[in-house]
Each structure stands twice: as C-alpha cells, then as structure tokens.
C-alpha cells in the first residue's frame, strides 16, 4: 500500500514539477478552530538542490490524458508510466504533510481523464474534502479545466484560494495547430467566469461579511514561449489584455523545453529561450509596476524584445526625445522611466526633493544607478550627456560597459527563473 503510494507520488510529482508557479502568497485565510491558515507573503519550507523554493505540494491528480498536445510530456501518444491518485489519498497526503509543517498547502493540477467534467470534479472534491471534512484552511491552488461545466468551476472557486487556466499558446491558430482539441475560446470561458465570480464576491462581501470567499488569491495563467512563432508583441499585448480585462494576478512565461522533439510541428531549439523568457518577465514588471503600455515596450517596427538590453533601456533609446529628464521637476511617472531608477528610488526622489534640490551625490545615496541614469537626466550640476551621442552609439556603449555585470546578472537570473524553465502539464 505504502509502496504503491510512494510510486504514484514519484510519477505524479515528477510530471508536475515543470509547472511554473509555486507561489503560496496572497491568502490571508484565517483558521477558525481547524487546521492551518494563510500567510500573506507565503513561506518556503524547503529548497531543492536546484535552489528552488518548495512551498506547496505541487502534484497531478493523474498524468493520464485523453488529449495529445504537442508540447506536453503527458500527451496521450507518449509511452510513459501513468498513475492516478484517489481523492482520499490526496487529502491524506496533504493533511499529513501539512501537520508536520512540510508545506504551505496544495497545488493540484491534472491531465484530462475521461472528460473535462470528470477531471474537474476530482480536483474540486479534493479541495472540498479538505475544507469541509478536514476543516483545513491552508493554501489551495487548483487548475480549472477548460471544457468543465460552470457549476464545477464555481464550486472549485469556493474551496480554492487560487484558480488558474493555462492559455499556453499565445494565439488561437497556433494553439489549434499544436493542440487540435483546444482553442482559446474554451480557455477564456472559465477565465471570464472566474473573473466575474471574484468581482461579484468582493461586492457581496462588502455588504454581507459572512459571504463565503471565492478564489480570494485571484487567478493566474501560463504562456509557453518559443514553441510557436508568435512575436513578443503578440505575447505582451495578450498579457496586457489579461491583466486589464481579466484582472489576473500573474501571467507566467515559460521558455519552451523540447520535451517531444520527435514532433515535427515543434521548432528545433538549440536551447530553451531563457533570456527571452527573462526579458518578458521584465516587460511584464514594467506593465504592472511602472505604468508602461505594451505598445510602448514592443512596437510595429520593434515587435521583439532586444535580448542584449533590458526593455526599459530599450524604450529609452528608442525615445531619446523625452530625455533628459529633470530630476528636480519631472513627475513621478517620468522619473520612473529613467533607466537606472527603480520604484523605490523614484519614490525617494520625489520625497527628498521637497527638502532640497538634489544633485548626483544625493541620487547615488537614494539608490540610483548613476552609470546608467546619467545619460538620461539633468539635475543641479550634471550636464546632459545625451545631446551629442546617437542612440545606437549609446546602446553599444552601455552594453560594453555592463558586459561583465550583465553576464553575471543574466546567470543569476537564469537560476532565479529556472522554475520557468520548462513545461509539462498545461491546459
């Protein structure tokens, strides 16, 4: 019995490990006499040898699948060991691990077994049993299976902290080419429903405090980068739309790892597009925290991100006419656009300049990277470096200047983002 369980755990953890998101943050669920609670910032309980945080029991209900998505290890036509948990096994495992302080909660995904409704129901039942029978208040993240009935998804949202529906392939045409059983509409349907449910739930909870929570930690999705030929422009416009229209908490980008290299529909990549993936995360950051529009980061004439420099610098070089920016006068939004100035230093600049006019000495203390910023600002005594350098010269200069640093940071970022390295199960 135990050996069988151990065997399943091995197969189904291995098949889930490539899924990107592992975050347990965003839940403030209280414990009311039962087991467990949410910690808003999330807690890492262990670290694997690759240096990644282990916060959740990240696992598949089953790796059986009736579909045959080209980019997925669990596709039906692959010959690999298959296994499936029962609802009770998973409940027991989660509670056993949680009580020993191994984990913050459960992240449950699944291949599609029999049909979407059957699969979704299994996932929902695990969450339901945990919440109602075990009185468990720890973190639960469930995958919403496209094609499952709205009622099942609604119920899942009542028990889970977070739901996610993975879009995977950024355009509908490409998705249908690689995963003939899927289309964007089937993904957007549950996403819309969850979004509406969250908004409605917030309203109701304002009026009636006892309204049960619905997906309080929001929803997220994942896009695979490099398995299909979409440009970064297409990807970022899609992401931006998802943040605005669907209020997603996160879009995850996952550099395509050639798991099924025999499939002719997939590109033969020498290595996974990790730098590109990293640039996408940086752009995503600019959209969420720096007030950039997707259309400013990638344009018709520059549809793909510059791999050699970060997207903020790249924007600055394409828009030299808005620089130099006067540190002592410009609005906060403009200060944020200066390469070498982060959110924290921008806030400090705006606060500090109320007391005195700032010079380059102050800026350094406030955390500004002057090596970079100096080409784009004027302050008390600094001349504008910009005027007589062309943006192409400046670009090359900055790349050279930061070469060693870039190398290093690129490496650590690679390890930072190694969790986004590959994709195995997605819906």
């Amino acid at each position, binding site marked *: 019995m135990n050996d069988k369980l151990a065997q399943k755990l091995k197969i189904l953890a291995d098949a889930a490990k490539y899924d990107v998101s592992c975050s347990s943050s965003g839940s403030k669920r209280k414990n009311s006499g039962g087991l467990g609670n949410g910690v808003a910032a999330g807690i890492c309980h262990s670290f694997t040898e*690759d240096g*990644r945080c282990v916060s959740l029991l990240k696992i598949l209900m089953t790796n059986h699948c009736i579909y045959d998505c080209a980019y997925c290890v669990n596709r039906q036509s692959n010959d690999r060991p298959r296994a499936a948990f029962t609802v009770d096994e998973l409940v027991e495992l989660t509670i056993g691990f949680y009580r*020993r302080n191994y984990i913050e909660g459960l992240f449950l995904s699944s291949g599609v077994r029999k049909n979407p409704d059957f699969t979704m129901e299994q996932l929902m039942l695990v969450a339901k049993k945990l919440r109602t029978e075990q009185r468990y208040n720890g973190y639960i993240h469930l995958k919403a299976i496209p094609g499952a009935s709205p009622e099942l998804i609604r119920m899942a949202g009542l028990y889970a902290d977070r739901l996610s529906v993975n879009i995977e392939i950024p355009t509908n045409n490409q998705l249908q080419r690689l995963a003939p059983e899927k289309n964007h509409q089937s993904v957007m349907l549950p996403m819309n429903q969850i979004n509406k449910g969250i908004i409605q739930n917030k309203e109701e909870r304002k009026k009636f405090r006892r309204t049960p929570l619905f997906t309080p930690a929001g929803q997220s999705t994942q896009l695979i980068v490099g398995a299909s030929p979409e440009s970064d422009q297409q990807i970022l416009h899609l992401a931006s739309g998802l943040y605005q229209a669907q209020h997603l908490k996160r879009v995850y980008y996952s550099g395509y790892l050639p798991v099924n290299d025999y499939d002719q529909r997939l590109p033969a990549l020498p290595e996974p597009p990790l730098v590109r993936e990293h640039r996408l995360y940086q752009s995503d950051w600019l959209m969420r925290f720096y007030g950039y529009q997707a259309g400013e980061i990638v344009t018709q004439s520059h549809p793909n991100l510059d791999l050699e420099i970060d997207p903020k610098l790249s924007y600055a070089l394409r828009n030299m006419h808005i620089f130099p920016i006067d540190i002592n006068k410009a609005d906060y939004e403009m200060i944020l656009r200066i390469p070498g100035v982060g959110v924290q230093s921008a806030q400090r600049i705006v606060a500090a300049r109320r007391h005195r006019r700032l010079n380059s000495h102050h800026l350094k203390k406030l955390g500004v990277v002057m090596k970079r910023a100096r080409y784009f600002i004027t302050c008390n005594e600094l001349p504008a470096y910009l005027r007589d350098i062309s943006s192409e010269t400046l670009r090359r200069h900055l790349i050279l200047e930061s070469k060693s640093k870039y190398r290093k940071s690129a490496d650590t970022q690679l390890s930072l983002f190694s969790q986004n390295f590959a994709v195995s199960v997605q819906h």
Partner: protein
Amino acid sequence: MLILTFDNTFEGFLSVVFTCYAEKLIPHDILPTNHFQEKLFAEVRHIDTNIVHTERVWAGLQKKLNRRAKEMPYRIFLSEMPEAYIRLYKYIRRVFDTNAYVDSDWGDPHVMELRKLDREVTREAMRMLQFIRFEKTKDNIYFAPIEPRHNVIPLIINHFKSRFSDQQWLIYDLKRDYGIFFDLKKVEEITLNNKQFDEIRGRLNTNVVMENESTYQRLWKNYFQSINIKERCNKKLQRQHMPQRFWKFLPEK
C-alpha cells in the same frame, strides 16, 4: 568598572535600566547571571527584578518609539548576544533622553548596528516557521526539536498556535533546554526531565514514535527528490536559502 547582573529575564533587564536611572549608575556592562563570569577588578552588583519598575520602563519606551520599532528592544534582548545588553541599554537611554524618534535615525552607526541584529533575530524566527519539522508520537503529540541561534521561541508562539490549533504540539529548544507545549487550549513553557528523544538530532525514540511516522517522512523525502530538476543543479543557492545547520532536522535531507 561596574558590572550589573540580572536574572536572565527581560523583566530583569528592564529593572536594571530603571535602577540605573534611579541611582544614576554608569554601568560598564550588563549581563544575565547565566552569561556572567567572575572578573577580577570589577565591581559586580546584582539587580533584583521588580515588576513595577519593569512596567514603567516598558510603558515609557512604547511612547517614544515608532510603531514598527516598538518590539525591537525585546527582539534585541532575545538575540542573547553578550554585547547586546549594554548596547540595548545605551539605546534605551538615548530614546529617553532625546525628543526625536531615535529608531529611524539610520545615519547613526549604533542604531544601524542594533537594526542589523534585530533583522537577524527576525530572520532566525522566520527560519523556524520554514524549517521546523514535526514528528508524531504515540500520544498524538507533534514534536519538533530546534536549535536556533537566538532565543526566538517567544516570537513564534502565535504563528504555531493559530496554524496548528487542532493538534497538540511541542517545540523544544535543545540548546536552551526548554520548550513550548500546546495542549489544544493554551501554550505552556516546559522543561523536560525525562527526554524521549536523542539529544543531538532531536529524533524521537522508537518506543514513543507513531508507527506510520516513518511512512510520511519517506513520502516527503521521495517527493522532495522527484521535484528536483537535475539539469539545473545549484547547491550553492540551496545552501544559501537553507543553511546546513538546519539539515539535521529535515527528513528530506
């Protein structure tokens, strides 16, 4: 050279602060009796704990600290660093003797030093929340041994109390030989006379551990190994996030 000693408690320490004010003493050092070693040429005086004094100092302090720094003196005390007590004393004097908020004076090297120590204690407490591992006993008590650098037990009680409120648990500090026990209602401080675990690694003796405990530990280890991505091996990063001194308590290692 005046050295003041107190009874190892925070209350005792604050009583020392009170006495220094009341009697205009200028201590060269302040130490708990269990850290204290006789020194030649030093004048040593023991200050008894006086709860009235303690409370007056604490209440006074609370008024003069920023909201986020209110608990800092307590955490500094818990650091148990030998030099922490006299530093904390000097800091408290500055807090009382100046009108401005001292705790946000980042430019001052002494304040910076204390802030650093404060962060260290907080991080050690955080690591307990991360790396504590319970083993279940035959009497349904979840037992976890710890060996923190600083005396952080008081800082983690609330977390474990609200998280594991429907199971009995015992967290035991092997180094300081005391622990906290939750009996489903309240948390109590205890010291065990008859120890049913190995005192180095804190593993429960086989006669008291629950039969299926090893199954869970094996499953967890098994899980831990299967989610590793071998191609991305980065043991340095692993050690950085999860220092080796915690490994002996982790069933997955």
